């Protein structure tokens, strides 16, 4: 892209092709400073490249880190995987340490891991994930117990968030967060396993919950 073609008012984007490492290096550099999943579009905007090209680079890097291609795109022979992996989750890309080094890494990640969720918290989280946006009253109805303190814990953990207010009842409606997707390694809520096998005809139950409580 030449200077003349650029939309007015924007700063010139550096041409990364002339730098050692090129676009691949530039994408890697960005991944190094990201503290949350980065989308193709974010990287594309910073580099002034089409999203599709950036996506191609990210997919290549992912395969390379997994040991399917050599570095520098020259080698085609499978090689050892790197100690880290690039994952596409929660709507973006992020670097993770490789699973099988978990015990080695744990000592260097202070504060990283949080306590396990209780059974009550897991069940409540499941209901919110599948029924979002959903009120506490409705979650209570489905679980048959008061869920106030459990929802508070999930809020503190950042796994759920107050999304909106029900226009009719004024009740706060809860949904899951990006952190929830990250912790579960999911790309989006749609990737949650279907609940139907567990319960045929569940969807038709939706209406009853409110009225029976």
């Amino acid at each position, binding site marked *: 892209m030449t200077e003349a073609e650029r939309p007015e008012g924007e700063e010139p984007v550096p041409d990364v092709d002339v730098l050692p490492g090129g676009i691949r290096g530039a994408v890697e550099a960005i991944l*190094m400073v*990201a503290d949350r999943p980065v989308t193709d579009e974010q990287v594309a905007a910073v580099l002034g490249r089409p999203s599709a090209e950036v996506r191609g680079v990210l997919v290549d890097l992912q395969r390379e880190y997994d040991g399917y291609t050599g570095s520098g795109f020259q080698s085609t022979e499978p090689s050892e995987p790197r100690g880290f992996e690039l994952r596409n989750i929660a709507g973006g890309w992020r670097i993770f*340490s490789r699973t099988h080094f978990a015990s080695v890494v744990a000592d260097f990640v202070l504060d990283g891991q949080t306590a396990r969720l209780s059974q009550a918290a897991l069940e409540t989280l499941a209901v919110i994930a599948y029924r979002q946006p959903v009120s506490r009253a409705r979650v209570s109805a489905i679980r048959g117990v008061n869920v106030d303190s459990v929802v508070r814990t999930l809020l503190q953990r950042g796994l759920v968030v107050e999304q909106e207010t029900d226009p*009719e009842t004024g009740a706060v409606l809860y949904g899951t967060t990006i952190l929830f997707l990250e912790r579960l390694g999911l790309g989006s809520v749609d990737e949650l396993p279907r609940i139907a096998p567990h319960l045929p005809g569940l969807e038709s139950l939706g209406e009853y919950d409110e009225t029976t409580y």
Partner: protein
Amino acid sequence: MFAVQLTNFSGPFDLLLNLISRRELDITEIALAQVTDEFIAHIRRIQAAEGEWKLDEASEFLVVAATLLDLKAARLLPSGAVEDEEDIALLEARDLLFARLLQYRAFKEVARHLAQRLEEEDARHPRDVPLEPHLTRLLPELIWKHTPEDFAALAAKVLAPRQEQPSEVGIEHLHAPAVSVRDQAVILQDFLMTRGPLSFRQLTEDAGSRLVLVVRFLALLELFRDGAISFDQAAPLAELLVRWSAEDGQWSAEALTSDVEAGGFEAEGNGDAPDGGPGLRSWGEREAQDD
């Protein structure tokens, strides 16, 4: 006999499922009747062992009891006697509970899956490192206009205890005097006959305690089953109006007593029931007595 582990206990549905699966019972009316009895026995055992009611279990008990009441009511229908809308409503109530139990079980299974995913993902650690120093220097200069007083006011606001919505049911009523369904039914009858159709809120505004509130609710169910009252609702989620629909003299509290004895909760080991009528209304009485 079954024994429920309290550590696994997380609500009435959990307990019901547990009871049902342990006995490998289908959810049939008869089986549920047995489960009902076992549930009451279970609650009593806890009470005997612990010496007092535990808040959680006592409040869950009310929920389970109300649910089981629905089932009991459905069980009262003679088989093949589904004729009027009332009967159908009772059967629907039973189906609804069945469906809700299935739903609960489905979420329990999904929760197990989530737990497994979380554990697997815990083995991966995202790169989350402090910003590199050369980048920190590029951050825009912070605009800071807060005085120490502003800051203290903010801290006071954030640190103030939040107004929590009540998340616990008080247990005061467990030590309250006995409240009988029959007496409350008579009071409701009086209200409805003299003041015309009323909402549940209006019927309970003088309740005074949660126990009276609950017992009035139960009395309403009994009255409804006896055809003494009817419910009107103008629109979904609109307020429900209770109307006295029995003819004068057609209903009396005496009828309620015998009905309850016939189909209500058969409390086991009922030697402690003073009037020999261990019916529905014995809830309040028992809770008070066992104090």
